[in-house]
């Protein structure tokens, strides 16, 4: 007598293997989806943190919000999606140079939150063109005075600036959104 499997045994074994295989595949797909979703959330959270930290630090060190800044053929205007800050220039020892100004421009470039730094000729700050996030859904700057409660004012009269940033990333068929808000007073006004 030869040892072997009956046809029924083979079919049963193949069926069980197929079921287990499908289940494992489902687990793999779900895990991959979860991985992607969580990776997106972490990335958005870190982006939000970094962007808001930089904006808040820049606002604190600002002397004023500028109405406009012209760089070549581009004119930046402080408003809901653009913020132009005037920061005192610094020398090579990181000391402030009196009566000179560097300009920090935060602005929305389609879906990118960008920072451009335009230093004065005498400043030791370097020119910068930095992208904080590539998945911005909305950006909103608001300008306030220091009244209690604060009253909304025009950008050039602002002593406090609030930023609301919403990031939106496609994850599979759905979009993940993450919103953060921060504000700071101008310390060098």
């Amino acid at each position, binding site marked *: 007598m030869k040892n072997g499997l009956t046809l029924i045994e083979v079919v049963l074994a193949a069926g069980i293997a197929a079921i287990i295989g499908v289940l494992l595949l489902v687990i793999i797909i779900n895990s*991959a989806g979860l991985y992607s979703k969580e990776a997106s959330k972490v990335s958005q959270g870190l982006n939000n943190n970094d962007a808001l930290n930089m904006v808040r630090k820049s606002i604190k060190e600002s002397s004023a919000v500028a109405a406009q800044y012209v760089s070549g053929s581009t004119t930046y205007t402080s408003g809901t999606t653009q913020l132009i800050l005037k920061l005192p220039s610094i020398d090579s020892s990181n000391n402030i140079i009196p009566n000179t100004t560097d300009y920090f421009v935060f602005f929305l470039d389609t879906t990118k939150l960008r920072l451009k730094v335009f230093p004065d000729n005498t400043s030791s700050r370097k020119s910068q063109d930095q992208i904080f996030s590539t998945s911005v859904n909305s950006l909103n700057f608001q300008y306030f005075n220091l009244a209690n409660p604060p009253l909304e004012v025009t950008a050039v009269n602002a002593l406090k600036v609030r930023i609301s940033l919403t990031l939106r990333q496609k994850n599979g068929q759905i979009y993940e959104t993450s919103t953060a808000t921060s504000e700071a007073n101008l310390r060098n006004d």
Partner: protein
Amino acid sequence: MIRKNGQILILVFVALGVVLFTVLFIIGGAQVYFQNAQYSLQAEKATAIAEAGVDKALNSLNKTGGSYNGEVETLLGDGSYSVTITNQSGANKVLEVTGYIPGKANPKVKRTIKIQVTNGLGIAFNYGLQIGEGGICMGNGATLNGSVYSNGNISGGNSTMITGDVYVAGGTQIAADQQSDCIGVNCQDYIFGKVISSESRQDVAQGFKPSQTKVLNKISLKLKKTGSPANLTVRIMSDSNGMPNKNGVLATGILSANLVSTQYGFIDVTFDSSPNLTGNTPYWIMIHANSLDNSNYWYWSSDLAQSYTQGQPKWSSNWQASTPTWTSITGDLGFKTYMGGVINSISLSNGSVVNGSVHANTITGGSGVIIKKDAYYQILDSSITVQGTKYPNSPDSPPTVFPVSDANVADWENAALAGGTSGSVTGGNSCTMTLGPKKINGNITLGNGCIVTVKTPLWVTGNISGGNTTKFVLDSSFGGTSGPIIVEGTTTLGNGSDLKGSGTQGSYLMLFSNYDSTLSGGSNGCAGGSQSGQAAVDTGNSSISGILYTPKGIVNLANGASFKEITAWEITLGNSAVLNYDTGFASTIFSSGPSGSFSLVKGTYQVK
């Protein structure tokens, strides 16, 4: 058939591996995100602790008269801070305060705030060229390179040019429309900006009724201060049942604390826009102090005789409360109101050009006058070509307030007097000398090529006359601070003269002339480039790197003059003269301040 065991097991291991990787990644990602958020939070805490350390250091400096030397480590909240103080030249010190979380020994996060403090007087020259009620008088072919803001008329001869924008503010009547002041024993202090007898006096208001229906251009308030309180917000408000109407704010202005000293003086305030007031109708001047502070607060002079009959003063703890409570004050608070309605104009003769926009009540001119951008006006001569857009019926621009008050000058004079008194000073050609701080009862007369080192404040009761290439230089010990020479008489400088700072960036020598050109016939504007009175300062053909300040006088500029900063009642540019000037200075620190207390220097806050 070949039997191979463990096929499913391999799949199970693969699946388990994927699940394990996903779980580990999620845990790791959450950990990274948590640490990032935690770091951000701790960084903010460290910054807040460092800022608290700055406040503490400032307070300690003032309590110890400047002898406080910092702290090694002081525990505060979830962390600690350390303070390092570096003496700079003049009146300045640099504070470096580091906040640590959780402590200095093994900090997870630290942030350092670096900021300057001074016991000098900070003055913001916001305009490179600021002109008072005397206006600007330009001769034929004169050129003004830059923008200009004038409280008076601008008159130009043929072919004059202004390369920037022009603002001519609405004219202000010379005499006060309403005023309240006190005499002798009736002069009492009304303290606000602190809690007095359980009264949280944060908002104080004085009622008044204008005698005429016109715009309100300016008010003056009789104030003094203790310590270094923050700027005040001043509002003009309508009346509601005998108290300020919280929904009736007609205009808002900022009263700069730097203009107020420890002695009473009338301090001017202008507004973001000049409000229209109706004659014989009650209105309120309302001052809001930003905080209640037992060390830094305000005094408003009060007249116990209550001689002002057109309104009374009141105080409130919160003018914006849903139902504000206003309590009457005994007395009348010192104030003056100045109405507008005086028509100011820019008048340029044939062939003149303004490259920017013009904002003026009335724009007149000869043939061929061109405004290359927009025109905002009530009246515009048809002969003038406006290449931009015309905006008829535009309201007048509000006048501006000069950045130095009479109280500031009185402090400088007292500081000079404390340095001693001498008679007139004379120097021949190529002389060198050091003057000040002191009061000179007489004149300074110098030959050509003199170099005068000045330790300010220097107060000259007579005239200053300098030959060609004579230079006044602020002593190098002043470092980054600035200082004033105060002249009661006229100043005449030869060609190539200069006013130089200490050599450190941000230091300037200011020539402050108290000479009143209106007493010698000076009037608002001029005709054809001829000045209407004796000049307070005549600069010759000079490139001056200091500050010229003549609140009541005319500055007469020769051809090719260039300046850092001019604040003058009137400027006269001779025929073919060209005036170049820099932009204003946001913050200039003068070494002799009115209060003697330390305060933060704006524009020096840095986070490291």
